[in-house]
C-alpha cells in the first residue's frame, strides 16, 4: 500500500509538472464537446433541389411550390434543360433534380397517368433515403389532391385507408445534438484515457527511466496500478466536466440513474486504461504506441455505433463491434442520458465491460517484464 502511495506521488508530480499536457487534456475535450455537436447535425432539412419544368402549367407550378413549401428542400433554381440541372448535381450544388416533362398537366388529365423524372446523387445513402422519401410523399399528397379535384365524390366508393400515426419517443423534437452529445463525450473520454496511458509506460522505456523502477522491489501490479490510478482520476474529471458542459451548452441532463452511469464509467475507464497500458507494454517507442493506438481508436470510434448503426453492419463487423468497448459506453450513455434507463438495463453491459477491464489489466500486468 505504501509503495503505491509513493508511486502515485511520483506520477502526479510528473503530470502536474507538464503544464502543456495538462492544459491539453482539460481544454481539448471541452472545446470539442462544445463545438462538434453543432457540426454533427445530420438532420436532413436542406436537400438541394434543382427543377426543370418543361410544362409551365398551373399543376406543375403547384407541385413545385408544394415541394419548396415543405421545408425539406432548398430550391437551387429552375433550369431550361436537364443537362444544366445535371451539371449542378455533378458540382455537388444539388442533390436532386426534378424534371417535369412537357404536357404534364394535359397527359395527367387526359391519359390518366403521367411520369415525372427524379435524378438523385446517390453517393450519400442517408440523404438519398430521406430526401427521396420526402419527395415521394409530397408527390403522393399532390396526386391525392389532383384526384379529389377531378373525381367527383359520388364516383369514389369509400375505400379502406390505413392511417399511420408516428410517435417519436425519447427525443420528440428530433433534436440532433441530443443524440450526438453523449456519444461524443464517450469518444473523448476514450481518447484521453487510451492515448495518455498508451504513451506513459513507453515513455519511461524510451528515456530509460523504467530501468530505475525495474531495479526496485516494486511489484508488477503495484507499478501498473500506480500508472492507472492518476489517469483514472483525470478521466473522471474530464467526464464530469463533459457532463457539466453538455448541461450548460445543450441543456442535456441525464434522465436516468446518474450513479449507474458513473459506476459504468469507472469500470469503463479501467478497461480503456488497461488497454492503453497493454499497448504500452508491447511497444518500444512512443511513435509505435501512438500508431497502434491510432489504429485501434479509428476502429473503436467508427465502429462504435456513434455515426452509423451497428444493426446495419454485416455479421463479422458486428463481432468486431461486440469486442469494441466504445460501443458499450456509447449505448449506455444514450440509454441513461436520453431514455432514462436504470440499473437493470445496463447490467449486461456492466458485466461485459468488467470482463474487459479484468482481462486487459491482467494481460498488461502479465506482459510487463521487469527484465529485458
Amino acid at each position, binding site marked *: 500500500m505504501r509503495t503505491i502511495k509513493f508511486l502515485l506521488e511520483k506520477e502526479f508530480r510528473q503530470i502536474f509538472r*507538464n503544464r*502543456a499536457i495538462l492544459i*491539453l487534456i482539460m481544454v*481539448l*475535450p471541452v472545446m*470539442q464537446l462544445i463545438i462538434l455537436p453543432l*457540426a454533427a*447535425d*445530420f*438532420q436532413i432539412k*436542406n436537400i*438541394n433541389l434543382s427543377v426543370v419544368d418543361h410544362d409551365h402549367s398551373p399543376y406543375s407550378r403547384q407541385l413545385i411550390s408544394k415541394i419548396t413549401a415543405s421545408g425539406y428542400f432548398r430550391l437551387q433554381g429552375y433550369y431550361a434543360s436537364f443537362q444544366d440541372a445535371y451539371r449542378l448535381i*455533378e458540382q*455537388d450544388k444539388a442533390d436532386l433534380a426534378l424534371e417535369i416533362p412537357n404536357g404534364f398537366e394535359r397527359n395527367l388529365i387526359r391519359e*390518366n*397517368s*403521367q*411520369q*415525372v423524372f*427524379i435524378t*438523385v*446523387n*446517390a*453517393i*450519400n*445513402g*442517408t440523404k*438519398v*433515403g430521406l430526401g427521396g*422519401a420526402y419527395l*415521394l410523399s409530397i408527390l403522393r399528397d399532390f396526386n391525392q389532391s*389532383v*384526384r379529389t379535384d377531378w*373525381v367527383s365524390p359520388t364516383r369514389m366508393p369509400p*375505400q*379502406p*385507408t*390505413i*392511417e*399511420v*400515426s*408516428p*410517435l417519436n419517443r*425519447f427525443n420528440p423534437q*428530433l433534436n*440532433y445534438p441530443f*443524440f450526438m452529445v453523449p456519444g461524443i463525450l464517450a*469518444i473523448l473520454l476514450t481518447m484521453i484515457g487510451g492515448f495518455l496511458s498508451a*504513451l506513459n509506460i513507453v515513455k519511461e522505456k524510451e528515456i530509460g527511466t523504467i530501468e530505475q523502477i525495474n531495479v526496485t522491489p516494486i511489484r508488477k501490479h503495484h507499478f501498473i496500478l500506480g500508472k492507472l490510478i492518476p489517469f483514472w482520476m483525470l478521466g473522471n474529471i474530464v467526464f464530469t466536466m463533459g457532463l457539466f458542459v453538455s448541461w450548460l451548452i445543450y441543456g442535456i441532463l441525464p434522465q436516468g440513474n446518474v450513479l449507474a452511469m458513473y459506476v459504468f464509467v469507472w469500470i469503463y475507464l479501467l478497461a480503456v486504461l488497461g488497454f492503453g497500458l497493454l499497448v504500452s507494454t508491447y511497444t518500444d*517507442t512512443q*511513435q509505435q504506441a501512438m500508431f497502434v493506438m491510432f489504429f485501434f481508436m479509428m476502429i473503436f470510434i467508427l465502429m462504435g455505433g456513434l*455515426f*452509423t*448503426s451497428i*444493426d*446495419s*453492419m454485416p455479421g463479422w463487423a458486428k463481432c468486431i463491434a461486440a469486442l469494441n468497448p466504445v460501443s458499450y459506453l456509447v449505448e449506455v450513455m444514450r*440509454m441513461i442520458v436520453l*431514455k432514462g434507463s436504470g440499473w437493470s*438495463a445496463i447490467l449486461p453491459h456492466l458485466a461485459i465491460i468488467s470482463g474487459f477491464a479484468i482481462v486487459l489489466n491482467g494481460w498488461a500486468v502479465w506482459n510487463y517484464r521487469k527484465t529485458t
Partner: protein
Amino acid sequence: MKQFLTFVRKEFYHVLRDRRTLLILFGMPLAQILIFGFALTNEVKNARIAIIDPAKDHASRSLAERIGASNYFEIYEDVTNRNRMETAFKDGKIKLAVVFPARFEHDLMHRHNARIQVIADASDPNYATTLTNYITSIVQDYQQELTGTAGLSYRITPQIRMLYNPQLKGAPNFVPGVMALVLMLVSVMMTAISIVREKETGTMEVLLVSPFKPAWVILSKAVPYLILSLVNVLSIVLMSVMVLQLPVAGSWLLLFAESTLFIVTCLTLGIFISIKTKSQQVAMLISLMGMLLPTMMFSGFMFPIENMPLPLQLFSNVVPAKWFYIIVKSIMIKGLGFTAIWKETLILAGIALFFFIISLRSFKIRLDEY
C-alpha cells in the same frame, strides 16, 4: 543536392529500421479501408422492431408479415404488449414498435379507416425517421393492393434514377472519406513526431550544427513520408478497386497527382506542429486528440457541411481533408476531370504554401528555443 540526398537517405534508414512502425503504417490504411468499406453504411438493415398486434386478424397478420419480410426489419418476438415494449425500448432491444388497434380488420373494412401507431426510438432522429418512412411505405403499398385499381386514376408515377451509386452502397461515400482521414492523420503525425523526436532525444542539435541549411534538414524529413504515403494511396486505391469493387471512374494519374498535393499539404502541417511543440506527447495529443474528430466531422463525409452553423461552415474551409474528399469523390466516383476540381486543387495548394511559409518563418535554429 548531394547533401540533401544524403539526408533523405538517413531519414529512410530511420523509417525502414523500425519494422513495427512500418508494418503499422502500411497495414493500418489497408485494414481500415477494408473494415470500413464493408462495415460502414448509412442504409438501414435488420433494424429490430416489435409488432404489437392485439387484433391478430387476417389483415393485421398479413400486414405484419409484409413488414417482417422486408430486409429493413427484423421482428423481435419477445415483445407482445405495451408494458414489455416500454422496457424493450429502454434496454435498447428494439428501435421501433408497430401497434395495431384491437379491431384492425373491422376498422379497416367496415369503418374504412384504421389507425396504426408507429412508435420510434427517436434518440437517433434520422434512424427513427428513416424507419418510420419505410413502415409507412410498406403500409401504403398494402393499402394500394386492397384498393385495387379503383383509386388509381390521374396517377403520377415518379421515375427515379440513382446516379453514381445505384445500389446505395456505403463504400462510394466512405472510401473517399476514410482515405482523406487516414492519409491526413498519418502524414501529419509521422512528420510531427519524427521531428519532435529529434528535438527530444537531442539529435537535432547535431543536425543543426552541420553545414547543411536547417530548412533542408526539415524538408529531407518530409521526403520519405511523402513516398510512404504515396505507397499507401496506391494500396488503398487498389484495395478498393479489387476488393470493394469500387472502380476509379476518372483518371488514375489525376488521382495520384491530387493525392501528392494533399499529402504535401499534410506534411507541411505536420512540420508546422513539430516546430511549435517541444515534446512528442504534446505533438501527438495535438495531431490526434485535436485533429481526429474535427477532421472526421468537417471533411463532410459524415455530416453534411451545409447543415452546420455558418461559423463552422467557414471553419470547414481550412480543413484540408474536406477538399481532398471532394476531389477523390469527383475523380473516383463521378469520373470528372481536372476542370471540375481546379478550385479545390488551388485551395489545397494555398493551404500547403501557407503552412510552408509560416513554418519557415517560425523555424528557430537556436537551441534555447527548444
